[in-house]
């Protein structure tokens, strides 16, 4: 779904997520805060898919950027008196981009297990900073009292989460559009080349390292925006946006949906967060068991995730 042989024309199925999201908005007004949360994690998963699915960078530290974005928006709203949501997003995006560039330049010369450990170390360091720097982050109590003004000075965040949902939907739409352009671009094709065979990319003259640093920075920016959205919707930031756990969660969501397919990043968070919401109500102590079982089934029987399963199904139908 990328490269010189892939027609970038929009297929009708690509409108389905947006139709579904609008239908959800009108039909399930009681679940809009869960809905906004799902949209945010889709954006987060999409940013991960860009580097994992297309460029082949395996990371357990993507929460570093999500968390930095979340705390940046939080600090701007709670301490600096910057309440305009779009300015908060811009601040979060800028800092996440900087962190992406700096850490990417440091670690992307390594590969595989070393890279994995380094990404994990970076988010662990950020978690420790957030934990200790209580005057800025509120430490373990979290950062409350984050003030978020009207979107464009017009739309106030209401109690029912209508504004929040549509605002997140708009941001996800923009993020999706950008990712889609990149995936279908020569840059996207070149990234799949690196994922497929990095040695070969070197031999055709690609400075692989710099190419990876750029896409890592872009992905970090997007993850930071997703984190900032979560802060704005909750008007609160907790330590659970940093460290191994959120990194692992987003990885599981993406694998569940399907890696390197763009829309796997849409399916995964929906299934994961709805299952989490349902299971946590039914079995508050054992809900992770359900998620674990789901993941085992996907990894054993559907290596391409849920979308990969659908692929096999439609191919079989065509064969008949």
């Amino acid at each position, binding site marked *: 779904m990328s*490269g010189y042989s892939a027609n970038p024309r929009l297929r009708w199925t690509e409108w389905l997520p947006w139709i579904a999201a609008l239908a959800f908005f009108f039909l399930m007004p009681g679940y809009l805060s869960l809905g906004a949360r799902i949209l945010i994690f889709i954006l987060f998963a999409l940013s991960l898919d860009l580097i994992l699915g297309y460029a082949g960078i395996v990371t357990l530290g993507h929460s570093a950027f999500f968390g930095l974005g979340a705390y940046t928006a939080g600090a701007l709203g709670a301490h600096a008196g910057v309440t305009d949501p779009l300015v908060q997003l811009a601040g979060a995006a800028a800092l996440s981009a900087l962190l992406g560039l700096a850490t990417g330049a440091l670690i992307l010369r390594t590969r595989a297990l070393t890279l994995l450990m380094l990404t994990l170390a970076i988010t662990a360091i950020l978690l420790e900073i957030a934990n200790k720097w209580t005057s800025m982050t509120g430490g373990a109590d979290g950062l409350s009292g984050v003030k978020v003004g009207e979107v464009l000075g017009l739309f106030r965040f209401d109690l029912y989460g209508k504004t929040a949902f549509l605002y997140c939907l708009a941001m996800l739409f923009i993020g999706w559009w950008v990712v889609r352009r990149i995936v279908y671009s020569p840059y996207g094709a070149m990234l799949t*080349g690196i994922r497929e065979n990095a040695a070969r990319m070197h031999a*055709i003259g690609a400075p692989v390292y710099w190419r990876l640093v750029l896409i890592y920075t872009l992905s970090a920016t997007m993850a930071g925006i997703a984190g900032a959205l979560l802060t704005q919707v909750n008007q609160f930031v907790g330590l659970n946006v940093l460290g191994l756990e959120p990194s692992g969660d987003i990885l599981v969501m993406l694998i569940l949906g399907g890696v390197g397919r763009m829309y796997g990043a849409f399916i995964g968070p929906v299934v994961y967060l709805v299952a989490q919401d349902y299971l946590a109500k039914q079995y508050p102590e054992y809900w992770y068991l359900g998620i674990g079982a789901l993941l085992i089934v996907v990894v054993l029987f559907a290596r391409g995730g849920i979308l990969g399963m659908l692929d096999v199904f439609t191919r079989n139908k065509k064969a008949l």
Partner: protein
Amino acid sequence: MYSLETRKLCKSFGALTVADNIDFRLEPGARHALIGPNGAGKTTFVNMLMGALAPSSGEILLGGENVTQVAQSTRVRRGLARTFQVTSLFRNLPVLDNVALAVAERSGLATRLWRPAYSHKEVIAEARELLAGLGLAGDAATRVADLAYGKQRLVEIAIALGLRPKVLLLDEPAAGVPSHEAQKILMNLEKLPHDIAILMIEHDMDLVFRFAQRITVLVQGVVLVEGTPQEIARDPRVHQVYLGEQAHA
């Protein structure tokens, strides 16, 4: 000025010396072969020429310029290209994309982030032309992994040509293919533009003597002898270490 030159090139891994003061010259437009028994250090030599491996000492000159410290990607942009002994392709991508990626890198379009690759018609047209020239026009949409090995060897060459090299290093272009397909590869090699200087590393003596105008024999990292195919075929030392060994086998 030589297209490619090495001066006293050395490489050792610990106590093992795999390149020992190699002085090598490739004339513009040359058809040159590098032969030698297994473990002679031929692929190591290619890896050093490309910049995939740093020499322990010595110099590498590309078009008269010292490139010993220059990164592989920069050497490629200055006109050096290679094929791999064991095919090294983008196996899950279509044949067309394999070549288009190289064409895009060479023409500086590979970093474009916005306009779809699909609408870069000039890149696609050039890739198709290269494939057609090698008799692969009908395979453009096929995934490389589903392609016969002989054809994969040709895709290797198409990718290298997509870089419009001045110097082309062919690391055993016919390795692992049956002899009738090796003939097809040789036919295609003979059609390559004459301004490209080509260094071929090959085990198949038949192929070497038909293709090369000059031959260098490498034994345990040392250049044993260099000359025309006739001289090499007559040389008793070559018979002893190389051709003799084959006659026994």
